[in-house]
């Protein structure tokens, strides 16, 4: 008995890998279709903040994630852009992460086709080129953005665009949102939100989500979308279910697997110790 248990504890880990593969792949082929309820408070706060902005407010969206964190952060970005454009807000897409430019192209291709076909580039939204020095750009955002963002990603002058009308610095914007898998949001909090008293919210990976608790409690961040659950919540809020919602559904079985594994192995350990 003891021997069998010990053997069971030292099971080849590739069997566990296989179990995970099956439990994660199966719901992709055949979705469970469970509803995503219990929306997170911080996600609702982001939603409400955008909902309460006056029409044609300028929202700065800094997309700073690369393909490595795409499944978590891309649905967040898409949902936020949908919401902002539907609310008839102006959206400026910025990036300080060179890996993000391809993700942004993906969004740029989707806006005219399915996100918001009636919106016009240059009037309702603009896409800025990548800039290499985050702290310098952020400091400049509070003074005069045209000194660095004089041209958009296609090389057209930004100053005369209708979308930029009346926007000189973050003081003229309604809200800033940084979506990132790195520490870029921390920089935004210190270099822009606090320094220039600018309302910021964030979208981050689940891994870094708990670390932002202190900033949320002090109000340095107006809200936070965390990981795929956050993306699913946001999709629920804007009533437009996409990858986030189907993703969180597919994760269900795998999450239960982890719990079962931890509990089983520790029970076996106890049995081995006291029997």
């Amino acid at each position, binding site marked *: 008995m003891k021997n069998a248990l010990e053997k069971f504890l*030292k099971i080849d*880990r590739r069997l566990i890998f296989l179990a995970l593969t099956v439990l994660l792949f199966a719901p992709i082929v055949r979705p469970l279709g469970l509803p995503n309820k219990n929306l997170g408070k911080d996600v609702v706060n982001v939603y409400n903040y955008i909902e309460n902005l006056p029409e044609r407010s300028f929202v700065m969206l800094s997309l700073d994630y690369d393909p490595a964190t795409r499944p978590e952060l891309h649905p967040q970005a898409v949902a936020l852009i949908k919401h902002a454009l539907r609310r008839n807000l102006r959206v400026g897409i910025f990036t300080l992460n060179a890996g993000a430019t391809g993700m942004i192209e993906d969004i740029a291709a989707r806006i005219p086709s399915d996100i918001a076909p009636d919106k016009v580039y240059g009037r309702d939204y603009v896409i800025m080129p990548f800039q290499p020095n985050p702290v310098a750009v952020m400091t400049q955002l509070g003074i005069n953005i045209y000194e660095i963002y004089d041209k958009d990603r296609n090389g057209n002058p930004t100053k005369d665009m209708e979308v930029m009308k009346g926007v000189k610095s973050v003081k003229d914007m309604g809200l800033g949102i940084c979506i990132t898998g790195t520490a870029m949001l921390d920089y935004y909090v210190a270099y822009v939100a*606090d320094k220039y008293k600018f309302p910021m919210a964030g979208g981050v990976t689940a*891994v*870094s989500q708990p*670390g932002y608790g202190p900033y949320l409690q002090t109000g340095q961040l107006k809200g936070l979308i965390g990981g795929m659950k956050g993306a699913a919540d946001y999709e629920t809020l804007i009533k437009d279910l996409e990858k986030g919602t189907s993703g969180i559904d597919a994760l269900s079985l795998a999450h239960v697997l982890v719990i079962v594994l931890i509990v089983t192995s520790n029970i076996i350990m106890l049995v081995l110790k006291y029997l």
Partner: protein
Amino acid sequence: MKRPPIIPLILPFLFLTSPSSAAKPSPLPPLTGFTAADMPGDAGGAALLRWDSPGEAAEGAAIEVYASDTAKPGWVKIAEFPASAHPEKDMDLPFWAWRAAPGRHALAADTSSAFGRPDGSQEIEFKLRLVKGAVSSETDPVKAVINGNWFNASRLNNLVLMLTIVVVFFWTVSHAKRKGLFIRRIAGLDAIDEAIGRATEMGRPIYYSTGIGSMSMVPTIASTSILGEVARKVAQYDTSLKVPHFDPIVMTVCKEVVKQSYLEMERPDSYRDDTNFFVSQDQFSFAASVDAMIHREKPAACFFIGHFMAESLLLAEVGATTGAIQIAGTEQESQLPFFFTSCDYTLIGEELYAAGAYLSKEPMLMSTLKVQDFGKAFVMLAVVTGSVLLAAGAVFSWEPLMRIVGQLFKAY
């Protein structure tokens, strides 16, 4: 600068509405005590306007602010708000930079969007217009010279704290060099002794990894100090030590460290140059190779101390399954949960630095740690006194106390 002319816009409005209100003309007294001055502590482009509270008479009225650049005269409306808004105590400035007078209102009026903001000074005229329904009244225009200032007084608390940290830092540096500073022993270091003792008993090797950080990173530096301590113990007990490396430069440094430890314990004969060896510069290949080695050799103890990223997961798991005593330490918060659940002892964040400083007695590491301790002591004191004072303020409804405490710890 094109501005829509204001007067033509307002005049027809006045005429249109005047017949209905002509029946009962209630003259609205103009606002009193109106002053205009430069807004202190800013980059220019804003003026500080103050006036007496209009009181009950202005219930439902609005105030419009007009400004005119004396270099290019012409009145422009720059702000509009309900007459009851902007009492002086609402000004977003701390008590040391702003003394709110009761019964007065104040506004930091932005002129930069109307007249731009020159590098030098500009002279601007202001007047307030009180509007209630169809009737309105105006103050006499007041001139103010507006310019940028040399100090933002509302950031004084930040400046004082910054200067304090500078002073404490230089004091600790000089103190650490002259006399040394006290740092308590870290509990994790006792666990190291225990692990090495066990390895000696079992006659199996010890693995020590400094992680994937470069030599310029503080966790790596701390890790080399701890490696020195481990190597001393290993030399003493004559156990075998293996140090796989990710970075060739870190490897060169570690070779010196280990050699020095053997010399100190007077065991240069037992020192082997292949104790430190290079594995791979690729994160996952490194982890896979070290995994395979640990799996093969089943060491008695594994140390994972330094800067670790995703490979923490791979390394800590294999050590745990082979039954080694594991001691870990990293500054990466996201990796700490994995180390904590699969290792016997984990040095958390700053503990790692403290252990490094404790062992190396390096004045620079020690002084940094001391400044951090100073900061923590300050925070503890501030939180305790701050919350007690605020709670007292709440119980006794003593509002000024609460405002002072709150503004001391507010960043502007």
